[in-house]
């Protein structure tokens, strides 16, 4: 009796597995199984945008970043097809979308890789929807190897003396990351900031605090942002960083070392609202600080080698 029960159980289990397989229809294969929500990046988003464009809902660029434009397109699609309007590409929405649209993944990815300006509307010849982007600066980026080599060697030298262990691991990271993201022609940035603002800040943070623990780097980035907001300092990131005599790394040129990913990440965190300093606008290294004025500021806390104050 019990033996039979077991067999029955096994059969039920097998059946259930079979069911799952069939409830996952083959057409959805291209999409991975994730629910895609606003802010996502990657191949699934490229497919989502391309499919929405194919049936005329999405008119923006197919760039692999799920921004507001994609969000509205998806909601309108859900509305017209009687799906739950939540702006999420869940299983049902993806199935419906796959049923009513086509997606030539190879073609789309080739266009992106070539940096072409292209669209993917259904019912129109694909060849007519693409043209090379004259903005893709093949000629623009090429001709600087002249200045690069000696600066690079200089940088590596400096890195080696100052922060050996950091650089080794992080160049690895950087390589991996670029490999991951080359697919996309756009990236997420925090509201009101450009990648270049982030890079410039990363330069400053790396120059000032590369030997510090991670929170110490976030803290330096937060101080820069606190200064931008403060009425007694310039109102732009560049203004604050290049203010004469404000940062030692700027004065002695260390700001031009190549920052690592850690510094960039710290800057992103600071921009996204992390401020371990408690709204400090000054900091100093007690071992090297020569001005007695700075010691008189009300101190908030010490992180790593720096004391942060108001």
């Amino acid at each position: 009796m019990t033996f039979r029960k077991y067999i029955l159980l096994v059969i039920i289990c097998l059946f259930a597995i079979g069911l799952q397989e069939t409830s996952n229809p083959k057409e959805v294969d291209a999409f991975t199984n994730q629910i895609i929500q606003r802010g996502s990046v990657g191949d699934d988003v490229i497919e989502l945008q391309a499919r929405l464009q194919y049936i005329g809902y999405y008119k923006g660029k197919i760039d692999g970043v799920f921004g507001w434009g994609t969000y509205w397109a998806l909601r309108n699609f859900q509305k017209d097809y009687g799906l739950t309007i939540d702006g999420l590409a869940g299983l049902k929405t993806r199935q419906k979308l796959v049923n009513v649209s086509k997606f030539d993944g190879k073609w789309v990815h080739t266009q992106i890789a070539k940096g072409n300006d292209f669209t993917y509307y259904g019912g129109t010849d694909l060849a007519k929807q693409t043209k090379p982007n004259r903005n893709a600066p093949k000629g623009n980026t090429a001709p600087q190897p002249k200045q690069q080599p000696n600066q690079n060697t200089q940088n590596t030298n400096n890195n080696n003396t100052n922060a050996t262990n950091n650089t080794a691991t992080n160049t690895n990271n950087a390589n991996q990351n670029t490999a991951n993201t080359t697919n996309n022609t756009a990236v997420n940035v925090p509201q009101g900031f450009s990648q270049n603002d982030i890079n410039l800040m990363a330069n400053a943070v790396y120059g000032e605090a590369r030997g510090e623990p991670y929170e110490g780097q976030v803290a330096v980035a937060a101080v820069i942002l606190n200064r931008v907001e403060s009425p007694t300092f310039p109102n732009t990131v560049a203004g604050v960083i290049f203010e004469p005599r404000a940062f030692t790394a700027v004065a002695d040129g260390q700001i031009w070392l190549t920052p690592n990913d850690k510094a960039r990440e710290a800057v992103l965190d600071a921009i996204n609202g992390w401020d371990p300093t408690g709204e400090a606008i000054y900091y100093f290294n007690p071992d090297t600080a020569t001005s007695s004025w700075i010691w008189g500021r009300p101190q908030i806390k010490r992180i790593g080698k720096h004391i942060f104050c108001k």
Partner: protein
Amino acid sequence: MLRWITIIVLAIGVTGTAIWGYKEHQEKNAILIQAENTYQRAFHELTYNMDLMHDKIGTAIAMNSKERLSPQLAEIWRLTSDSLSNVGQLPLTLLPFNKTEEFLSKIGDFTYRTAIRDLKKDPLTDKELDTLKNLYTQAGNIKDELRQVQHTALENNLRWMDVQLALATEDTQADNTIIDGFKTVEKKVEGFAEGNIDSAISGTSSENHKYENVEGPKIDENEALNYSKDIFNIKATKDLRVTTTGDGADIPLYSVSYSDGKKNAYLDLTQQGGHPITLLVDRPVGEKQISLNEGYKIAEKYIQEHNFESMELLNSSQYENVGIYSFIYNQNGVRVFADAIEVKVALDNGDILGLTANNYFLNHHKREIPKPGLSTEQAKDFVNPNVAIQEDYLAVITNDLGEEVLTYEFLGILGDDTYRIFINAMDGTEEKVERLNGKEINYAGI
């Protein structure tokens, strides 16, 4: 004898000259760096101002009320004059860049004229609106080009001193990237005849005031350590370091840090009640395994476990393999923007990498929210009719005067852009208009 004296005198002379030369060299370097920094500052400010101006023009298009539009136009006017002075500080004298300068002053003239006009009596005409839209596109083009130049300059550590030299010596092979970039900007222009720095969330108050919501009994260092142990997900408290804040802090905190070579963690806890203010975990994040959406579920569960109740997701973004989520407080269906929390989740295994609840503890308190004086439909009439409204909410935001006001929040589309518009729920004042971007061309990818 005489020979020795001569040798010594000469030796002293040579050493003296060497020292003097070295000093001179150092001084020259210091001055070079300073000059370079001035150029760099002007350049980076120029690109930032152009970006900001583009954004402000875009926002102006979506505005409806004179009370908002006039200051906005004045702001754009200020930005044009700032940008012009930035251009003026760059060593571009030998480079034809006058078309761009003309373009800037054209925007300046236009915005100045419209800003000082009484827009209530004499609103923007359709033609002027078209001009504004044109300026928006053109400013967008220039911004993109400048950002491209900036990207290459940052990536390759290009120096403005080199630009100056190249321009001064009229190098025939002038293949200087900065010069090329500026020439492209200039060509683009030929073809056609104070920023938001609060956190990622708008409407949060940047005014300093006392922490509203820090309750509970005072905790001692041991309790802080035990709490951190759980939050860092480690076994023993002996590897932890704890420090306290000094006199300058707005609120007394314990700062706990941990480091084991691979992982590095930091936590700020209030001494009163032991609430977490800032959590930062630093470790290498591997290949992405879970989706942004799954990360959201994890983040949501995490903040519930830490007694933040009735929070809703405002925004989510994926950076590399990390998801960043912004939550705001929802009081009986009214979104309170000031009470914000941000959470960072690693998308390789779903670990929590960060939490910042500073705004939440600074602002959160029980609010008496009045009934709105206008209906949603009535409030919609105050929105620029060209904006296609997609979503609406009731929201409490902090306005320009630093007061909390009840508003209708409308999300709408105009052209290719999405706007968030806040209309006062009592009297229909246009409290705030924002253009939502949050993504950008990947300069490194093309």
